[in-house]
């Protein structure tokens, strides 16, 4: 039974209340951060899930289609089905029954639709199309309308079950049209809309009435917006689609009027982002995959359900992002915990130094080591556990819950640090181990110590190298790999710290040659304290890891900006409709002339064009552009420049020269390839240079517009790239119809994505906390050496050193740790970031094709580090000086004696 001496426990705690409080604060802060991060990450993942589904919109919808059953009548014709609307409604019920409970919970009320093919309106207009639609919500209702003229579409016949011949005249269909569309089409109730399909088969579509939606915001309308307003480019660029609304009564006539493959019925379930969490999304992804697995093949002509959705792919992309973000958070947390643990160890070292005499006395008076260890452990538990509990409680208050997974190991180690240091000091102070009498034995003992140190160093370095290798080879999923930056910082700092004694020794030797006494005293003090490994190790490691976090933040920030440049290709990009493509060049000219625009270039961009090289199909982004103008535009951007190999603009009409870039290297300069055309012919192309990475894909092919035209690719431009602060405004001012994308919006969208925003916040918090830990470590190291420093300064003052010169000597003593941390910390942080950026896969978050370029904000890092360390150094020296002034020299020497 270990007997504790409670008065000693209380006395030590009272005497060292300050350092103990400091330990408590560090533990509480770390517990707060480490306890809050997992729930915050979970909440951020949930928000990212909702955000991804919200942004995916149509892609996240789950759609199901089913072919019609045969409608042949007894005489071989097609028989009208008066209850077809009920059959269509039952499709919605059938579909819902197939959904797993997870999917049902995550999806909104379905909307059942019946859609005809898009037909050309043959009223002499250009590219007007009409599509008939039937809408029914899963709850049984349909989007309500008010008939402002005419009436709702009715049946075309009074014979509900009439059978019509297969090749008879077009069967009349009654539809309603919205007010806007009626005005655009110039139709009134009772009019016919002349339409035909792409085989020029005419259809008899009659307007029964003109409607006004009761609630234009009804989600059902969103599925078929062309029912309310003419929709541009739905049937190819330049087209305008109109819609005709079918009713329960006119739906059977539409079924008769179209072939089965011309009228599609389906059900659409929109995902409800608000019901999603990251955990439920993972089950959802499995459910969707299962559903798609069970789906009938779409090419099959039967009534079975054919499911289609991109929800699983949206969730898969999200999973990749979260799979990238989660380990990044772990890396930062481990860095934080490593820094905090070193600082807690420094605090334990400080406590032990303050107590060495008392512990040695207690030991000499008969206290057993286990009893001393138990007393120190009681104190450590009493300080650490409540502090951790406070940190966790704060985390729970701030985030709704707190995680113990990172906190527990840290708290256990923090509890152990004080007793371990104290017990070791007590054992050392009282062990009967005398220095060997003869010189060779002393040398042998020194070698043994050095060997032991080297073994420890080698073990740490090997562990760090192993972690880095694991990280680079297997990615960041393994536990050891997550610790690679922390271990790397620790190992390199350890090696640097080992160099401190010889370095300060060299400075001391130089100082001895100098006549400056202050430099010598400072160098002597620095050399005397340089063998204390922990202070420099803790400060350098913490600063290095803070720099690592800052580098990640700066790299992500720059990556987001570069990614936006890549995605847009300029400050603004306008993609125009085909009907306006003839004026694209004019738009570009007008934009280029606008104020605030540096350059504007028209181009034809085909996102996924298929090329053939050596019988291999390659899908790449094709850019047909005036390469000289494009080169000038790119020169004003951070994007890579456009090379100008000889012959790029050669327009001989036989072979089109091209700049190429493919992720797998399948196309490279020197290779010939071809662009197949719909006419079963192909255009020969020759890769003569490397294309810059423009766009979100890795595969890009750039050809000059003149060369393309000479080869028969006379495509009108459909894209305008513009640079300059006024680019977006200039494009808007042209009033051109099309999709405008600005770099600033893309960058902002990506920057405000929950995962990216959350991680960047974590980088900043980690950097600030680690810097604070580094500074605290520096202050603790100074405090631990203060008594010895005071005594030496007091001795020097007895020799005639002036009081004001003691500041310089004290600063000189502390300077090596500050210099090592300020110089090597940022360098080491940058090195770690450079080594780990690839495996950390920051580009998944920045939206870049390749690993982002490492960005080290040297000035910020160095200024902050040097400024903060200098401030702490001056504060420590100044503070000590004030305290020293209050004590008589005699008192200091009396105590030290």
């Amino acid at each position, binding site marked *: 039974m270990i007997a504790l001496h409670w008065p000693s426990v209380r006395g030590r705690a009272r005497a060292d209340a300050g350092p103990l409080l400091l330990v408590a604060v560090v533990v509480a802060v770390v517990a707060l951060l480490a306890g809050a991060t997992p729930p915050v990450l979970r909440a951020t993942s949930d928000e990212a899930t909702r955000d991804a589904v919200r942004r995916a919109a149509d892609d996240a919808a789950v759609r199901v289609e089913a072919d019609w059953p045969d409608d042949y009548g007894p005489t071989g014709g097609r028989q009208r089905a008066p209850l077809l609307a009920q059959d269509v409604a039952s499709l919605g019920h059938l579909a819902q029954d197939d959904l797993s409970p997870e999917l049902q919970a995550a999806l909104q009320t379905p909307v059942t639709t019946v859609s005809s093919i898009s037909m050309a309106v043959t009223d002499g207009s250009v590219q007007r199309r009409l599509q008939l639609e039937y809408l029914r919500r899963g709850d049984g209702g349909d989007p309500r309308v008010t008939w402002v003229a005419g009436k709702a579409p009715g049946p075309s016949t009074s014979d509900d079950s009439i059978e019509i011949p297969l090749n008879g005249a077009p069967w009349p269909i009654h539809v309603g049209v919205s007010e806007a569309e009626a005005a655009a089409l110039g139709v009134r109730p009772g009019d016919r809309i002349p339409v035909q399909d792409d085989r020029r088969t005419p259809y008899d579509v009659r307007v029964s009435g003109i409607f006004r939606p009761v609630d234009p915001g009804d989600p059902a309308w969103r599925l078929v917006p062309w029912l309310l307003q003419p929709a541009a480019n739905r049937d190819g660029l330049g087209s305008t689609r109109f819609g005709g609304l079918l009713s329960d009564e006119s739906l059977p006539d539409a079924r008769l009027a179209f072939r089965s493959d011309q009228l599609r019925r389906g059900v659409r379930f929109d995902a409800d982002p608000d019901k999603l969490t990251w955990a439920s999304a993972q089950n959802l992804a499995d459910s969707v995959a299962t559903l798609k697995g069970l789906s009938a093949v779409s090419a099959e002509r039967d009534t079975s359900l054919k499911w289609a959705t991109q929800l699983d792919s949206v969730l898969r992309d999200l999973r990749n992002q979260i799979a990238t973000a989660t380990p990044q958070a772990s890396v930062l947390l481990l860095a934080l915990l490593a820094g905090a643990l070193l600082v807690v160890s420094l605090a334990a070292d400080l406590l032990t130094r303050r107590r060495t005499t008392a512990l040695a006395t207690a030991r000499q008076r008969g206290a057993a080591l286990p009893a001393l260890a138990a007393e120190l452990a009681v104190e450590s538990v009493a300080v650490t556990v409540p502090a951790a509990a406070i940190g966790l409680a704060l985390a729970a208050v701030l985030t709704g819950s707190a995680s113990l997974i990172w906190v527990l190991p840290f708290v256990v180690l923090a509890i152990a640090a004080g007793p371990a240091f104290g017990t070791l000091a007590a054992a050392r102070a009282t062990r009967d181990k005398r220095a060997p009498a003869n010189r060779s034995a002393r040398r042998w003992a020194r070698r043994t110590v050095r060997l032991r140190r080297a073994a420890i160093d080698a073990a740490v370095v090997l562990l760090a190298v192993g972690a880095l290798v694991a990280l680079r080879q297997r990615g960041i999923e393994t536990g050891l790999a997550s610790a690679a930056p922390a271990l790397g910082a620790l190992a390199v700092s350890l090696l640097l710290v080992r160099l401190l004694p010889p370095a300060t020794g060299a400075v001391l030797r130089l100082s001895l040659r100098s*006549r400056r*006494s202050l430099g010598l005293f400072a160098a002597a003090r620095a050399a*005397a304290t340089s063998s204390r490994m922990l202070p420099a190790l803790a400060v350098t490691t913490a600063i290095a890891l803070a720099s690592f976090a800052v580098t990640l933040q700066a790299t992500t920030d720059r990556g987001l900006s570069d990614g936006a440049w890549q995605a847009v290709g300029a400050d603004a990009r306008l993609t125009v409709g085909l009907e306006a493509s003839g004026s694209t060049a004019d738009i570009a000219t007008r934009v280029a002339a606008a104020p605030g625009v540096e350059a504007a270039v028209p181009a034809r961009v085909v996102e996924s064009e298929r090329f053939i090289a050596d019988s291999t199909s390659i899908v790449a982004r094709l850019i047909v552009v005036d390469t000289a103008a494009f080169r000038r535009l790119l020169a004003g951007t951070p994007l890579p420049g456009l090379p100008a190999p000889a012959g790029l603009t050669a327009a001989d009409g036989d072979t089109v020269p091209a700049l190429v870039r493919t992720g797998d290297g399948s196309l490279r300069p020197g290779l010939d390839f071809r662009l197949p055309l719909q006419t079963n012919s192909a255009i020969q192309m020759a890769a003569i240079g490397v294309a810059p990475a423009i766009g979100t894909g890795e595969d890009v092919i750039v050809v000059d517009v003149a060369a393309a035209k000479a080869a028969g690719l006379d495509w009108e431009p459909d894209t305008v790239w513009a640079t300059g602060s006024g680019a977006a405004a200039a494009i808007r001012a042209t009033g051109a119809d099309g999709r405008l994308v600005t770099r600033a919006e893309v960058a902002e969208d990506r920057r405000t994505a929950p995962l990216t925003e959350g991680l960047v916040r974590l980088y900043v918090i980690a950097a600030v906390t680690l810097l604070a830990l580094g500074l605290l470590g520096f202050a603790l190291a100074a405090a631990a050496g203060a008594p010895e420093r005071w005594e030496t300064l007091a001795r020097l003052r007895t*020799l*005639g050193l002036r*009081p004001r010169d003691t500041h310089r000597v004290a600063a000189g003593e502390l300077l090596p740790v500050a210099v090592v941390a300020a110089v090597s910390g940022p360098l080491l942080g940058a090195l770690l970031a450079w080594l780990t950026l690839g495996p950390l896969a920051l580009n998944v978050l920045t939206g870049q094709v390749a690993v982002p370029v490492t960005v080290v904000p040297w000035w910020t890092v160095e200024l902050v580090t040097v400024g903060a360390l200098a401030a702490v150094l001056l504060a420590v020296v100044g503070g000590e000086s004030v305290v020293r002034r209050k004590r*008589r*020299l005699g008192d200091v*020497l009396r105590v030290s*004696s």
Partner: protein
Amino acid sequence: MTSALLTVRGVSRTFGSGPAAVHALSDVSFEVEPGTMVALVGRSGSGKTTLLNVIGGLDRPDSGTVTVDGLEVTGLDEDGLSQLRRDKVSYVFQTFGLIPVLSAAENVGVPLRLARAEPAERERRVGLLLDLVGLADHAQQRPGELSGGQQQRVAIARALAASPRLLVADEPTGQLDAETGLAVMGLLRGVVESEGVTAVVATHDPVMMALADRVIRISDGRVLT
């Protein structure tokens, strides 16, 4: 005008206040002639160290004056005291107080560096002093490589480096065995004679008392003889 090198007049020093106040020195007065060695003896807590600190300007008395070589120590500011310690008063402590990373020679040279002595003059003086204390062969050894007695001899050499007028030694043999202590005492006696230094040595050691020219006994902060 007195011929005494050290004059202590009515010096009192009290630590703390109220009932807990400790009167370390009470109206202490004495004089020490140049070139003499004075042993300051008394029980632990009698006020020896406080008196030495006041003499050397490490502590200020509540009242009274101390004059060293005609300079009133109690009237000096911190810079003046630094100058005093650089030029006129040196200390030898029980715990040696050497700089561990410097060799014996370098430690001895520290006061000369503070006095901005020329390197050649410094080396000459250091060699002389190490020879005087019998450590010429150990000049390049660091304190950790020297015995306690050798360290104290280095400390004495260092104290003499700047040719002080007054050497203040507080229990210089307190951490040494009897034989080594005797050697150090002999050394102190020797340097007083050879260097013409005045020494005030606080000690419990009767041998040192025997070697001293004069013994001042102090008890409860008062000088008895």
